[in-house]
């Protein structure tokens, strides 16, 4: 096998990186507006929530499962937290994020209970819990959208923080959201967990084979609870971050987002069969997806095509990884 093909097989991230570069260069050639700092910064900002949710899905997919409940959990955590902040009149960042993360964690542990003790298929479990949680929020907590005038001001101020800003050619200012940094920190923590702790290696081992993982001495229950609990917690965190960044808390938000996020993770080289995938790949996959879907406008393509593009990306990326994994197994 040639050196390049080999490098791609050993480091699937290189493939995603190549796709990303190709996409960016193509779009930039069609419409140079793409290269304006304001556009680039807004793409980075747009990839923050998708990317963080992608990391949650990555954890589950590595273990051989799949999660479609996280948008519901994210919205539930966000809506409940914002409601509580307004009702109890607390407006500080850390307790708010702690609460959202905690709600996500609890919901994630519910998934773990079903998956571990009842040995249910993760897809069915998370379809069920996700739907139930959405129903609960709309039916019991409320259906009304909380707009900017009611949103806790500190939350909005936090999400508006900029790392730096530059003056563009036309004299306008373009700033890079500090949320990119939050994303980087979450990504780094997950990377360290996956790469440098036994708990993280246990997730890969579980994805490689549950029976084998049990035989070498991994605690399967602990690992399963860690995976789904952490995925839920990350989703809760990302949910509140999302609300803060768009200045609204809408209980009907993020419907259908699971497909975009799963597309990003698969595009990032994670295997739908488990055991394969990296944080850096997921980040690149998320960026690629965001760049493609958000650039349709500047490419002059009607945005109604966005869902078609997402669907095609899921199919193409899954086909590519499935083809790769089959070649490995054969």
């Amino acid at each position, binding site marked *: 096998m040639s050196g390049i093909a080999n490098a791609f097989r050993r480091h699937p991230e290189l493939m995603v990186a190549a796709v990303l570069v190709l996409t960016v260069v193509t779009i930039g050639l069609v419409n140079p507006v793409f290269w304006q700092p304001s556009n680039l910064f807004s793409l980075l900002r747009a990839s923050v929530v998708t990317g963080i949710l992608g990391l949650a899905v990555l954890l589950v997919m590595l273990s051989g499962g799949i999660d479609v409940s996280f948008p519901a959990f994210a919205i539930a955590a966000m809506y409940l937290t914002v409601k509580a902040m307004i009702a109890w009149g607390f407006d500080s960042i850390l307790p708010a994020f702690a609460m959202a993360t905690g709600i996500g964690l609890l919901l994630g542990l519910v998934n773990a209970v079903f998956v571990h003790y009842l040995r249910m298929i993760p897809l069915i479990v998370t379809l069920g819990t996700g739907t139930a949680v959405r129903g609960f929020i709309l039916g019991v907590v409320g259906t009304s959208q909380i707009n900017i005038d009611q949103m806790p001001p500190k939350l909005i101020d936090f999400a508006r923080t900029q790392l730096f800003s530059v003056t563009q050619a036309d004299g306008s200012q373009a700033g890079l959201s500090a949320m990119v940094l939050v994303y980087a920190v979450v990504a780094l923590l997950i990377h360290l967990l996956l*790469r*440098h*702790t*036994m*708990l*993280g*290696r246990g997730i*890969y*081992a579980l*994805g*490689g*084979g549950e*029976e*084998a*993982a049990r*035989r*070498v*001495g*991994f605690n399967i229950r602990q690992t399963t609870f860690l995976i789904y609990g952490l995925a839920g917690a990350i989703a809760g965190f990302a949910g509140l971050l999302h609300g803060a960044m768009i200045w609204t808390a809408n209980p009907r938000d993020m419907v259908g987002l699971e497909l975009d996020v799963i597309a990003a993770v698969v595009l990032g080289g994670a*295997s739908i069969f*488990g*055991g*394969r995938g990296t944080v850096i790949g997921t980040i690149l996959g998320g960026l690629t997806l965001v760049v493609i879907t958000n650039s349709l406008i500047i490419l002059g393509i009607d945005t109604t095509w966005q869902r078609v593009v997402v669907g095609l990306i899921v199919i193409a990326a899954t086909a590519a990884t499935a083809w790769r994994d089959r070649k*490995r*197994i054969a």
Partner: protein
Amino acid sequence: MTAPLIELRHVGKSFAAVRALEDVSLSIGRGEIHCLAGENGSGKSTLIKVISGVWQPDQGELLIDGQRIESMTPRAAITHGVQVIYQDFSLFGNLSVAENLALSSELQEGRKLVSWRRVREIARRAIDRLGVDLPLDALVETLPTSGKQLVAIARALMSDPRLLIMDEPTTALTGREVAALFRVVRDIQSRGIAVLFVSHKMREMLEISERLTVIRSGRVVAAGPISEFDEAAITRAMTGQEIAAEGYRWKPSPNAAPLLEVENLTIPGQLEDVSLRILPGEIVGVSGLLGSGRTELALALFGMQPGYTGRIRIAGQEVRLDSVQHAIEHGIAYVPEDRLTEGLFLAQTIDRNMLATSLGRLSRAGVVQSGRAARDAAGMIREMAIATPTGDRPVTQLSGGNQQRVVIGRWLLNDPRLLILNGPTVGVDVGSKSGIHRKIRELARARGLGVLMISDDLPELVENCNRILVLHRGRLVSDTPVEATSETALGEQLAALA
């Protein structure tokens, strides 16, 4: 006299109403290579699991170094130096060789963080200790079976075991890999580690082990030093019946018209100028090392190598076999090597598996005539003597031998003229093996079926074939009547080619 390393005394174990083990006594000395033989379902795996602490025996006792062990758990077994290498190796294909080797010891030490440098060091030491060469950074799934097995052995040796149990270690290995494995096993033995070798292949038992224990239906039926056994004695003990190698005595008439004629069959890089003939009722064996082109030959005859050059005639008529559909139309049937992945629909019933290639014939206007289908399937279950009360059971419930009968039976329903069998009894135990052999010979003789039998198992070829072809690097190097050759001669011929 010192106590044996491990001793079982009158061990019994039942599951629900089934007695899996009854009054089993067994002792393994230090540094001894002990062979545990028995057919599928004889209780071998239960016995391994009792020794390794997975299951507690209902009766009897387990002693290590003469000390009675009250309650054996998997952890206690490991502490006492018992390591098991399961047939599936329990490795992680998605992780590197180094990590596979280091994981269990890191977990045993209760480490929370991973130092990749230490992982590599641990792995390097493990590999050095085994004295083999393995790429530390390669993903385990990219290794051949023999490489995966070495990783599993290296990992087992890391905890300084005193007894290494290997469950059917040679199943997926080629002859040369088996020889390499035996060198490793002898090397392990030379360090004073005992090996319990679980197998149902006689040749291997006789070659590697010092002592043998044969179990059948959960009881020990024979035990002793290997020198007291020969193949016939082991077979008798394993099956409880006399299975004599009878040979295929039927001779085709010399002026019969050939069923299949192949002239100058060539597939670039795979087969070179292969010519052969098969008469009706004739069983022709094909042997050769891995990569000799024998599977490619079978695939070409089954229409899966459309790019071939050369001529193929069936019953005197020239045909072009460039699709499986054509091959089937010309009466060719192929039973693949790996029946689990290529030959069977594992999630389906016996009947459905049996009828898989007959549905077209059994349909009228696109609708399967279920009455005829059921009759055909039931008839074939009887003809192939498949051990099942009804055909609506899942095919996975059958033993390896019976599954193979389903695959063969499926093709017989199409009334083929040429049956190609690739490794017809791989993974099938001795008793059903001779049953399958008898059936194949009977079919060839009664139906005038031509059979091309590809096999690694030389006794199988000598016992069943009229002629034996040897392929090497895509060329036909010999075509010998069975009377003019023997297992030993064939073995030497193949060894010389390696």
